């Protein structure tokens, strides 16, 4: 299967290790991965900040660049949600748009559905806290939302972690509260954003986590920045980094 790697702009520039880990994981699972170099940004930041016109330009670009691929995989739930859930608000419905929406997947969802779990066996020593991406949870419906009363939800991130020997998932009291990043929110509402983040850190710390993981990089950058400032001894690994490391040497 020919898979296009969709790397969010801020991951490309600020946390390239997540993209490298994604690439390594996908190749290890036998996919033929291509990174279309014309890609830059999906337009999420613009759309969420009120810049629908600007986002529309970037969405159109995205459609052209990724059209030739069978699958598009991205290590960011919020960027995937922008493409699959919100491009429809920006662009007229077209076969191209519908196709792109259908084939763009968040990394953990892609792995959990396209790869047998035996291929992702690995080892991880330590307690893992999950900071669910809000857009993964409430736009893509990946994971259990405490607000809803739905039967058995699709929770790929948790399933992948549970598949790792030695890994113990420790849930905070508030399992799915937002970390307070929120795009431009984190600089426009610094006081509330900070407090939200500190509360998440405290909750994960009390649960006994040594590492916090997520399917979105932005949440982790925000939490990591706070933790380093406040000297909270937590590590932050995107699920791609964590899985890549855990499955690197199965022996």
């Amino acid at each position: 299967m020919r898979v296009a790697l969709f790397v969010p702009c801020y991951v490309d520039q600020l946390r390239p290790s997540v993209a490298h880990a994604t690439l390594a994981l996908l190749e290890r699972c036998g996919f033929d991965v291509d990174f279309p170099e014309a890609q830059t940004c999906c337009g999420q930041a613009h759309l969420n900040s009120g810049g629908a016109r600007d986002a529309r330009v970037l969405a159109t670009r995205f459609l052209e660049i990724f059209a030739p691929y069978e699958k598009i995989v991205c290590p960011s739930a919020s960027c995937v949600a922008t493409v699959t859930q919100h491009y429809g608000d920006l662009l007229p419905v077209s076969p191209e748009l519908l196709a792109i929406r259908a084939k763009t997947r968040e990394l953990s969802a892609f792995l959990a559905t396209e790869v047998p779990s035996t291929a992702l066996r690995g080892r991880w020593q330590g307690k893992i806290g999950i900071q669910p991406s809000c857009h993964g949870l409430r736009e893509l419906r990946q994971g259990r939302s405490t607000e809803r009363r739905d039967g058995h939800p699709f929770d790929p991130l948790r399933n992948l972690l549970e598949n790792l020997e030695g890994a113990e998932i420790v849930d905070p009291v508030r399992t799915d509260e937002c970390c307070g990043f929120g795009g431009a929110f984190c600089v426009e509402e610094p006081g509330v954003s900070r407090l939200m983040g500190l509360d998440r850190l405290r909750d994960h710390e009390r649960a006994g986590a040594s590492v916090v993981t997520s399917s979105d990089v932005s949440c982790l950058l925000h939490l990591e920045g706070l933790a380093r400032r406040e000297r909270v001894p937590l590590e932050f690994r995107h699920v791609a980094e964590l899985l890549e490391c855990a499955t690197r040497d199965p022996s």
Partner: protein
Amino acid sequence: MTHPERANAFANNEDRARWHDQALWFVRDRRDRAMQGLPEWEGLRAEAARIKGETLSRLADQLESFEDNAIASGAKVHWAGDAREFNDIVLDLLRTRRVTRVVKSKSMLTEECQLNPWLEAHGVEVVDTDLGERIVQLRREPPSHIVFPAIHLRKEEIGETFHAHLGSPKGLADPTRLTEIARGDLRSKFLGAQAGITGVNFAIAETGGIVVCTNEGNADLGTALPPIHIACMGIEKLVPKTADLAVFLRLLARSATGQAITAYTSHFHGPREGGELHIVIVDNGRSETLANPSFARALSCIRCGACMNTCPVFRRSGGHSYEATIPGPIGSILEPVRDAARHASLPFACTLCGSCTDVCPVAIPLHHQLKAWRGELTERALTGKWKRFCLALSRAIFERPGLYSAAGRLVRWLGRRLPRRWLYGKANTWGIARELPEFPSESFRERYRRERARER
């Protein structure tokens, strides 16, 4: 002042903000447990959304049918286009009946129209009888939450207020004893009132009846004792049939407080013997909201407050930070329809986490509407010039991969080289509370290109 300015002030008092957060999280938690008790919860929400959607799509017919049936039951129906007309109607009703003492149960509509100051200015004493509303009334503050008007106050502060106004012993802060003091004071107000004003939770088109929900029983005392009952409702309060009440009542209290139902759910059909029932139907901007396809569904709101309790921003910024009659997520949609310039910062007081949408009992897509508002505010040039410039500039860079790569390289280089005091200068809002990420020397695409070139 903008929302961030007021919110920062609230959040920077960390202990208090955490206490406020915990108090509302407690309510959210109770709501979750009540929701878990009903296996049909999601079906019920969809049904509520369907009923409200249908009602709003033929609201004029529903209102006329309500009016006909209400008149047939003996009520008098009045119509007010805006707040001014509403206030005049109520004042006129009271004046012509020589009423100077009124008890009022909770009604966000009267808050929205500023009825109290209007009546007071014309010599009518209005006593808010909901305990929370009474507390903020004595303090001359607006409510900070639509279900818990005094949730922002500590019991010690309420004790001070009661000491000053009701003569309670200094230092008394026990909720039970404070409530008892308020009960005694308000009992005399109930007994002396000449008219009772209530809000309306639901109005039934097929019967002309209205339903009012309280836990304290204040709406009931306020309408059982004085001979005149004035009920105030927005045009969106209608449900078509009596049977629809089951759907909404099952959702309302569970969403609001985690109760199965409020202690009192009172149905009024006409006045009592020898009494009068006046129903005032108010538009005050609602028909404009309905005409805006992006936000029309927000009129389905049944005012349960669940979106406020779940909102991680509301819990840490306090209801007053919104400076709006209806605060929180739903208020951030409804208030800008009224005055977009004044409330332009509200749709941005949100991380788009989507929790409000998932708790909403009538399934209003709150966070998507907030996002839609951001676009509309930008189109109307009501967001900052600098922000709009940044959006356009970054878009122009993202359209050109070469420029994007160069810009990224420059930023990362600066991030590694600049001295800390420059990096963490005034312009760096991120850095107020957080460290910047470590800037890598190579972007993903740079290393990818380098490695693929070597492979070839």
